[in-house]
């Protein structure tokens, strides 16, 4: 078999899995037929169809509104994926419209301030500009902080960690009242997949330490520093190969999906299924589950599925 054919086939298979999982997520049943769960009990909401901003609004409303997470006068830190010098349509970064809308929702809920940052992989100046996030944050009334300024990081001890006993963490994460994680769903050459947990690698200063010392365990242990109050996963057009940077638009598949969850393990498990991974393919999910950070068995997660009207 030629390599090209093999790649075609494997992506075909992958996409088929992904679609299958999607249909598992979104049975033809409408939301009304699901067992009704109190919004405040919900741990996960999955939305499909429509445009990003309306999907986000619908999902947040289903979760009980932003006021469930942000109380008046609190400070909020958003951690999008703004790591790459790529334009929004290439989906290597969180879509700027989502970041902007989260800021708006937070400010409407009475947040004192909303700060946004990422410790970029490409040059920060380029990545912030190309991703469109710096402009979006400014327009929405948030504050963009630098992730490249070492003086903003503080060394903390991580209790219960084996491989990552201490790390320099961005002070915005340590100081804010509310931490909202807004990654984009992508394939990842090194870690298999990048979603909510992997995105938190952008809150630490020394990432190379991870690559030396059991990458997956370190990713899981990063969550011990601080669990996000809310994870919002942009899976509108996930990158299925060549991640996390991506090569061109052909790497993407349009799924028009967004996941919201308070449980970082559950949301990453769902995300992993969407990319067509088998259980155990993305080891940091298992590491985090073993550390007791969340529920890997999706059937035990109080969840609601919303299909947006076309």
């Amino acid at each position, binding site marked *: 078999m030629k390599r*090209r054919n093999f790649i075609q086939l494997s992506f075909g298979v992958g996409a088929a899995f992904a679609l299958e999982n999607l249909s598992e997520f979104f049975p033809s049943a409408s939301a009304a037929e699901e067992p009704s769960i109190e919004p405040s009990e919900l741990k996960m909401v999955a939305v499909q169809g429509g445009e990003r901003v309306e999907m986000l609004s619908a999902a947040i409303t289903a979760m009980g509104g932003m006021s469930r997470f942000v109380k008046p006068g609190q400070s909020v830190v958003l951690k999008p994926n703004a790591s790459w010098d790529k334009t929004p349509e290439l989906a290597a970064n969180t879509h700027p419209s989502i970041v902007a809308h989260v800021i708006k929702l937070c400010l409407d809920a009475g947040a004192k301030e909303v700060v946004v940052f990422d410790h970029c*992989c490409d040059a920060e100046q380029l990545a912030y500009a190309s991703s469109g996030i710096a402009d979006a944050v400014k327009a929405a009334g948030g504050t963009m902080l630098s992730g490249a300024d070492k003086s903003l990081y503080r060394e903390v001890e991580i209790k219960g960690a084996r491989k990552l006993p201490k790390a320099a963490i961005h002070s915005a994460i340590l100081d804010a009242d509310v931490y909202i994680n807004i990654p984009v769903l992508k394939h990842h*050459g090194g870690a298999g997949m990048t979603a909510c947990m992997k995105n938190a690698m952008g809150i630490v200063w020394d990432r190379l330490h991870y*690559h030396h010392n*059991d*990458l997956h365990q370190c990713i899981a242990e990063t969550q011990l520093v601080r669990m996000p109050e809310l994870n919002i996963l942009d899976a509108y057009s996930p990158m299925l190969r060549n991640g996390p940077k991506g090569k061109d638009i052909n790497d993407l598949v349009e799924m028009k999906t967004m996941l919201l969850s308070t449980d970082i393990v559950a949301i990453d498990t769902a995300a992993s299924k969407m990319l067509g991974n088998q259980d155990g393919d993305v080891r940091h999910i298992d590491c985090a589950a073993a550390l007791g950070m969340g529920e890997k068995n999706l059937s035990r997660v109080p969840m609601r599925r919303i299909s947006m009207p076309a």
Partner: protein
Amino acid sequence: MLAHIRRLIALLFLAIFIYSFLAWGTSHESALIARSQFTPALLSSLRGESWAIIALASLLLLTLLLGRVYCSWICPLGIMQDIARHLRKGKAERYSPNPIWIRAFFGGSCLIALLSGSILILSLLDPYSIAARFCSAILNPLAAELNNALGRSFIQPDWARYSLPLLLLVALSLLLPLGMAIWRGRIYCNSICPLGALLGLLSRFAPLAPHLTPANCGRCAHCVQSCKSQAIDLKTMRIDKTRCVGCYNCIASCSNSAISIRPHNPFASIDPSERPAKMGRKDQAAKPRPTPSADPARRAALGLGACAIGSLALPSCRPASAEQEKLSDTIDSLSNNHCHAVIPPGAGSLANFLQSCTGCGLCITACPTKTLKPSLMQHGLSGLLKPHLNFRESFCAFDCNQCGNICPEGAIAHLPLKLKQQTQIGLAEFHSERCLIWADGVECGACIEHCPTKALYIRKVSRPKLIAKNCTGCGLCAKRCYAQAISIHNGLPVIDWAKCTGCGHCIRVCPHQALDYDRLHAPILNKKLCIGCGGCEAICPATPKRALIITARAQHLQTEIKKESP
């Protein structure tokens, strides 16, 4: 009036010039002032750039007509010297004879070196480059500090961009002209500056240069005191146009309107009868001036001769000749190019690059990832201060061709982004024995994350793994290995990964279950796709030496593009 306008315009030019080095949002347009400088225009013209030919032609025409106004109005170093001169207490100048032989020496050395293919002397003495390097090495990080102190969005001040010896060189090469200016006005421009020598030749007969009308002169000598070039000689009633930098201070200082820039016949000799009748107290001043003991022309010839001899002693200034480099490299092979560092995309070939870059540092400040660094000896002596790509901490951004956009000298050609993304400036060398995945079996993949062309990709590899507690050191695996990849050291098998084919035969033959499959996600490099951006080298966590090292191309090549189904 003219002098005031000159000061305003000169300061404006200087401000825009400095701004183009401050590197936030450095664009094609902001390099306009750099492009209109003489040396960049000259070098770019040699490469056939049309805008440069226009700029050069206008500068030459300006000089032929108005004299060396470039030196006072446009040249950044000239303006800096004028500012420095204010540090002197008594500001009065006096006439000094023309140091023509020094000028001929430096100008001639530059010319001869240029003709023999070395730009080193020019790049060290050129006023544009000296001022530019000062902005790039010192003002740029200073501005970043100021920006941060004002609480604007954070900019990393990059003091380490120029290493200490280079920083000293930059500071000294600026302090020399400034110090000379404090001492004796524009003496640098009239003795050392090679551009001054060239423009001096052109401005000799400029019809619109400041001109002294002896009939009106009251011999108050105010003009002499105000002349930074010390070029006004009241004994012969002439202004030395080869040294006059067109600052027009003399016109402002003259209360009798004896000096003007009205058109005059530049070839006319001064008629003695035109001289003012009153010659002050003594009449002997009217006597013809005694002929100088040395003929200036002979001195110039001597200077030229001296520099010809001097330039013979500079063979090392020539760039490493192209013959040494094997130009027959294909994109996936690399001859031994470890002798020099990677040059920016658009530079084309090392020999060309070293001959047309003066190391002004504009690209270095414009590089958004700070990968371009000035060279000390990375390119050899001929590459002093010129940029090279340093992948220790950063790498060349894939969607960026800023250095080529901004280079005013044409040393880095402007490549369209598509073309730049296929230009192989270097080639990654993969040392699997250092790679964390190959050597230690850990999960890493950092290089694959960063590779923009996906020349690096993951392949699932199975290979034998030793379970030491089961091993008795019987050596059966070593005997049976088809590839002779296993040897026994200290009673344990050691596998040479360069030879191992991963067939698994050793695992099957081991009688003690001491070998098992180890499944790796290992990086593989496709050299035909590698553009040498250095993403992999910059991020590789292997220590002390990284597993991926970029080797430089002396001649840039075009890569293939990875074809994938949509």
